[in-house]
């Protein structure tokens, strides 16, 4: 029986141009709440409403841990351990198509993780915990927006306890 606590496992998502994204396999409750907080706006009457312009950014900053993206000089752009605000600033410097590709890859990963959790709740989960991830996700078209999700890893830690 798997624990109810989220282990800090990661998965590598492959995107176009040979780049990769290292993302959290699953979000904790705290990370989920923080993600929601970043996508909501407080209106004048004190009510909160989703800011559709921030939904994509919120999910990307929640999941993204590292990547292989480089500058024109080939220098890797460091995003590991940077603050959410710093990560948002770096992401905002991307060309729009690249951000969209990253967002779509991470949203597909998020959907796959939700499907995996539903399968577990329904007793359909696998003992190995393999994610329910389609190798050819739908809804993504165009030569620069293709991606694939590699075999799940638990880097940097894979031991059990």
């Amino acid at each position, binding site marked *: 029986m798997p624990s109810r606590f989220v*282990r800090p496992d990661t998965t590598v998502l492959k995107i176009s141009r040979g780049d990769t994204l290292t993302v959290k396999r699953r979000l904790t409750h705290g990370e989920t709440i923080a993600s929601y907080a970043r996508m909501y706006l407080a209106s004048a009457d004190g009510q909160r409403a989703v800011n559709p312009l921030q939904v994509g950014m919120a999910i990307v900053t929640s999941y993204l841990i590292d990547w292989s993206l480089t500058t024109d000089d080939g220098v890797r752009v460091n995003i590991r351990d940077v603050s959410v605000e710093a990560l948002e600033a770096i992401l905002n410097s991307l060309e729009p198509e690249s951000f969209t590709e990253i967002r779509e890859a991470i949203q597909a990963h998020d959907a796959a993780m939700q499907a995996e959790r539903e399968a577990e709740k329904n007793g359909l989960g696998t003992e190995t915990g393999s994610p329910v991830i389609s190798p050819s996700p739908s809804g993504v078209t165009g030569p620069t927006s293709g991606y694939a999700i590699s075999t799940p890893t638990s880097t940097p830690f894979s*031991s059990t306890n």
Partner: protein
Amino acid sequence: MPVTVRGVDARLVWGYLPAGTLGAYTVTRESGRWTLTATVVTSDAFRVAQHPLAFVAPHTHGAWRWPIATLSIVDGTLTASLGPPEL
């Protein structure tokens, strides 16, 4: 030959998850064994009890990282035995 690394502002991590923040710390290698003593600023009781934990000490060009083999926190002071630093 003994090696000592002193600093302030380091952290404990469980995978990518923060498990605690440390103030002044001292890492020592003596007879091939690495040990850590540090002041605990904050700690997540659940995550600190998980395995594997690592100690991460930032420096100018990145961070040093050691796996934590054993750890205890008493009265705000952390004492740990470390594995070899991860390069």
